[in-house]
């Protein structure tokens, strides 16, 4: 019985002289965050990280019992920010799957949008924008509202065509007026740039 055992493609040794190393390469030289997508310009798939997916799922589950107040930062918000700052793009990939799913709790999704809008982290900006812009087209009015408000907080003109499209499609008068204000603000910001 002959069994061939080959290194899988994701386990390839990328350097030619490992004996030259004295560091724990994966643990210390590059952090998990920088490994996942080290360049803003890269489109490579981020490393699968079951830990971050589980961490986020647990955070969202715990948040179901939490009461969110307007002027107080919630434990959920602190936890979400910490996970994003620690894991970068792999956290964003996992978050997209949770927060844009049909089964997400509307209140928790809205709270998570607020965190995404307030964060100042250039590494995850593109992903945060994409989530909030997608939220504009949610079937939940509460999530659409939260997406608009958070895009106003983020104040990035990138969202202009999507806010415009959302206004065109919005059936709720009150929400449409709010989105028009967001659009006005973003257009002013664009003129300043």
């Amino acid at each position, binding site marked *: *019985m002959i069994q061939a055992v*080959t290194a899988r493609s994701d386990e390839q040794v990328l350097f030619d002289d490992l004996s030259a190393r004295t560091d724990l390469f994966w643990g210390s030289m590059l952090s998990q965050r920088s490994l996942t997508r080290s360049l803003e310009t890269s489109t490579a798939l981020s490393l699968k990280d079951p830990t971050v997916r589980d961490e986020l799922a647990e955070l969202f589950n715990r948040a179901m019992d939490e009461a969110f107040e307007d002027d107080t930062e919630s434990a959920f918000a602190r936890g979400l920010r910490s996970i994003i700052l620690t894991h970068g793009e792999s956290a964003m990939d996992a978050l997209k*799957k949770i927060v844009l799913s049909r*089964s997400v709790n509307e209140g928790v999704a809205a709270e998570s949008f607020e965190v995404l809008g307030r964060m100042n982290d250039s590494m995850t900006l593109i992903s945060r924008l994409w989530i909030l812009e997608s939220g504009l087209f949610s079937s939940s009015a509460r999530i659409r509202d939260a997406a608009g408000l958070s895009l106003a907080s983020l104040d990035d003109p990138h969202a202009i065509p*999507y806010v415009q499209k959302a206004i065109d499609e919005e059936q709720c008068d009150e929400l449409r007026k709010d989105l028009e204000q967001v659009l006005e603000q973003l257009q002013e910001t664009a003129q300043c740039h």
Partner: protein
Amino acid sequence: MPEETHEVESKTVDWQTESLRMTAFPSPGTVPAEPPNWWETTVGEPPESRIHQPKVGVVQAQGRFSSGVLTLISQPGRIDWLLAWPNREEVVEPFEESLGTFVELVLRWLGDAPVLQRIAFGAILRLPVSDRIDGYRKLSSYLHHVDLDPEGSTEFLFQINRPRKSKAGIENLSINRLSKWSLAFTQQATYTVHDPQATQFQLTGLQKDLYCRLELDINTSPDIKGDFAAKDVRQIFNELVDLAREIATNGDIP
């Protein structure tokens, strides 16, 4: 004189393809929770396996395609087509030949794709070498701005992005041209198992493959405002492939 000989030699050796990737970043709100059957409409037959995770909006389909293994992954925020050749002892796919079937497949899918705001073409290529010094000499012939000392150095890794303006006629469209150059090896061990419970086995073969490794990630910049018009996407994708081909042929040039 010996260095000149090496340069000519490296240009005539074809890269082999480890994997090819096309990534599409859909416009927000344009991919339905139940994505269409892109595999069937693009490949022309059902996949060998399909995994659907409706709660998180992920669909993964896989099957043999051409001489490789094709995978389609649709998840929130991105759609990836990956064509890989995992059984390298059976199939060695020259880069230029692998491009033909893959590009044709992607262009067919783009006719059916959602509205996109960013696209990418990725490739992982190999160039077999006899030893480290041979590998470094080959890498040197592609890296015109790097002074690499083949005899006196190890652990070389070079990564660079050289953005270029697109020629597709779209205002302010910039294309990132990321390339990562290194020398790598894979090791294949063969065991003879002596009993059905596999409690006793003996190492009977060890094969080490050493090669120059080139990772390419050619992608449109995320800075562009708005979405691509459907009529432009195919042209842009062809441009990304041409830029990858240029780097594999001419090396790292501005």
